[in-house]
């Protein structure tokens, strides 16, 4: 029995990544990290800012995501996200830019606790990359 399943990551501009030899994907879901293996139950969940780790036969990749939705069904994992960056060839400048923006937003007093929590998360993750 093979242990692989297929993964598709899309962002609004294009289909970002297509792989069919994925063994495990760890995603930063809303209520904690989820590791998805083959024959996982169908699931829909949200992502918070964080790192997606993809373990496949051809190697290991990690990506930073801003937000997103994942859907796992029939051994197909789809990840929809508005912003995704490959950690390997990440642009330090861009990261600090996003971080600055998030910090500015955090300074805004009108945001809800939930947003605050998300922004905190975001900044923390960004700091760890940088």
């Amino acid at each position, binding site marked *: 029995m093979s242990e692989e399943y297929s993964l*598709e990551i*899309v*962002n*609004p*501009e*294009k*289909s970002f990544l297509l792989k069919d030899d994925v063994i495990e994907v760890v995603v930063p*879901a*809303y*209520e904690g990290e*989820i590791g998805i293996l083959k024959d996982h*139950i*169908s*699931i*829909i*969940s*949200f992502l918070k800012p964080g790192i997606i780790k993809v373990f496949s036969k051809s190697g290991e990749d990690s990506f930073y995501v801003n937000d997103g*939705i994942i*859907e796992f*069904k*029939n051994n197909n994992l*789809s990840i*929809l996200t*508005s912003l995704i960056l490959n950690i390997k060839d990440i642009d330090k400048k861009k990261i600090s830019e996003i971080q600055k923006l998030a910090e500015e937003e955090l300074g805004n007093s009108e945001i809800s606790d939930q947003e605050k929590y998300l922004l905190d998360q975001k900044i923390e993750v960004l700091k760890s990359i940088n």
Partner: protein
Amino acid sequence: MASLDDLKKRISSVKSTQKITKAMKMVAAAKLRRAQESAEKGRPYSDKMNNIILNLSGGISDIENAPKLLSGTGEDKIHLCVVMTSDRGLCGGFNTNIIKKAKLYFQKILDEGKTLKIITVGTKGYDQLKRVYGDNIIERISFKESKNVNYFDADKVGKILIEKFENKEFDVCVIFYNQFKNVITQIPQEQQIIPLKTINEKTNSSDDNYEFEPDEDEILSNLLPKNISTQIFKAMLENSASEQGSRMSAMDNATRNAGEMVDKLTIEYNRSRQAAITKELIEIISGAESL
């Protein structure tokens, strides 16, 4: 008959116009390819999004408490129309077609005694609508500065819509854009995005039970605003491909027309030149004969 000099001037002026339209056509063709590519690349995202929402809304048991973006406010009084046009002209019937379609809808709404509100995206739409519907336009948005269509612009429009919806400023939202079919055909579209129309189209085919994390309602209320932005983004991509396609064929026509005009003028020029020569010859001969 125009003098030889005038004809010469006209020929050169038409020729330089032809050069311009030809260049515009080439630019549009190059841009079209890129726009078409990104329109195609953008499709998986919106399709997937739609799928997930379908799966989710099929599983909703309690329609009464469904998020308002999905089920509507329960009223049908105020219609908000988002008219998406280009920022530049010289693209054939592109803008006019959208406006025509939108105006039909406006008339219907007004005839039914409902309130009409308009948001224009792109400057050309505003220019064409301000005279008749100036009072109905509540906002105008333009992305003249951004070179390519990008998601963050679409997101901005989406956020404006959602804010207005939450403030109960409208009940139904419809967007107008051109769908790209091929270079010569673009189909003006009207699409209702709030409340979402897909809800009843698919009967409960979802036998697969999903696990939701967090719960269904929360996912749906987070997903629907995103879907609005995605739909707008899709419309923007389609629109930009249509704009370039429409401009390309318009400029192609213009180039051909200019070529025909140059030919006609050249014939006229040659004829009158010959006539002038013949006239001179006759004068010389008859002058010599009289000697």
